[in-house]
């Protein structure tokens, strides 16, 4: 716990020093605009909440799609395995920004899906699911053959083997990586601003456009993301420690 408190303290000090530095630098050549930006706090708040919502929904959805991809990757049908592998390669081989543009302006419009939130969350989930799927698949393949054989000789069905023997071990091993993936998801969601979803980054862009106070608009943005990702990375580290104990 003392290490935890120590780390937290050093992070706070670091942030505070940055803040002081920028405030000082800003106040040297012109009057600080914090009051102006403060008036837009509701915009920031709404954007931040939207980002949290997107990340939450995308986490659930990407876990679901990820599980489907793993199932397909481990299927006994070779054509299903090929499709899943192709999907994973395409998703991991192209930038998220490209996928957002392509899937939103071409695919989503093509099928008449115009709800930006839905489309955005789905695209983000699809992106994340490829990474989650590969993690889970790696985790499953790391379970020794002897565990499968034990389950088999005891008479467990394939489903029972996954449910009671393999997946609990995989998830325990993967919990740090999956927590890290959630942090990535939160950061990646900022790219959804490109298709006009009013999430946190979009909120900061709007405030900047309205006030011309760049530092004062983007500094809260960085803090807001850190507020979400720091506890996650600490949680991830805690889980890692617990697993190695």
């Amino acid at each position, binding site marked *: 716990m003392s290490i935890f408190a120590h780390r937290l303290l050093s992070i706070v000090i670091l942030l505070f020093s940055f803040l002081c530095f920028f405030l000082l630098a800003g106040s040297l050549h012109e009057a600080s605009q914090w009051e102006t930006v403060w008036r837009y706090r509701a915009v920031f708040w709404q954007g931040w909440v939207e980002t949290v919502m997107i990340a939450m929904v995308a986490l659930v959805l990407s876990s679901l799609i990820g599980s489907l991809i793993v199932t397909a990757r481990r299927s006994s049908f070779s054509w299903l395995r090929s499709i899943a592998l192709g999907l994973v390669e395409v998703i991991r081989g192209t930038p998220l920004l490209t996928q957002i543009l392509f899937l939103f302006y071409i695919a989503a419009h093509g099928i008449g899906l115009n709800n930006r939130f839905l489309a955005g969350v789905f695209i983000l989930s699809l992106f994340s699911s490829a990474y989650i799927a590969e993690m889970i698949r790696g985790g499953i393949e790391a379970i020794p053959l*002897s*565990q499968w*054989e*034990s389950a*088999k*000789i*005891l*008479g*467990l*069905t394939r489903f*029972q083997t996954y449910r*009671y*023997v393999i997946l*609990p*071990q995989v998830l*325990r091993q993967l919990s740090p990586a999956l927590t890290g993936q959630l942090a990535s998801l939160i950061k990646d969601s900022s790219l959804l601003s490109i298709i006009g979803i009013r999430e946190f980054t979009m909120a900061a862009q709007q405030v900047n456009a309205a006030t011309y106070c760049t530092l004062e608009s983007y500094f809260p943005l960085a803090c807001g993301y850190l507020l979400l990702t720091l506890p996650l990375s600490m949680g991830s580290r805690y889980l890692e420690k617990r697993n190695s104990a």
Partner: protein
Amino acid sequence: MKISVSHLKKNFTLEHQQTELFQDLSFSVEFDHVLALIGPSGSGKTTLLRLLAGLERPDEGIITINEERLQFHSPKWLKQYQKKLGFVFQQQNLFPHYTALENVMLPLTLVHHEKSATAQEKAIAIMERLKIFQHAAKKPHQLSGGEAQRVAIARALVTEPQFLLLDEPTASLDPEMKVEILDLIAALKTMARPIIVVTHEMGFARTCAERLLFLEQGVILEQGETTPFFDHPQHPRVKKFLSHVFAY
């Protein structure tokens, strides 16, 4: 218990090279309590045991156990068959995320659909009998090798299998624990359940087994009752093996 094997063929692919383990193995053996499979490493003892358990599939040939032919092509049949046998691996293969008690209960609740209370009762009874109940709440990594092997044996026995297959159950244990486990297996004889054991422990085979099969390079060189086997081995290779093993 009666086992017959006829014209068994089994190939392995090791590093892209096909090796023939069993070319044309045929034998028949009948025993009441303990059958020991012995022989040098790589002789095919473990593979034979795994074939008997339906964990491996022969390329050709027929295996019958108590006049029932093993249907390797039918996963459904194999599943039912495997429910009726107990198998203990060389490494204990317990599930690391469950406690010892949960490991023993698992086949009862999941496979034999027993109620949790009944399963627990049965698991506790067998664990007490194998003197392992004091470790019931521990996870496998908190158990010593010998304790874990006892739990594995308890897990194999809790479903009251028709027979028990043991694959070198003492191979990964230190000498003292070895004795403990061998004593335990000897005591299991009284459970009136046939046991087939692959072992390197010749002393144990001699005192505990009633019949022996000696394998080398996929061929049965000699089989017979224990006392004549050890006192008057026939095959020169078996003679040499035994004289080496008992040299110290």
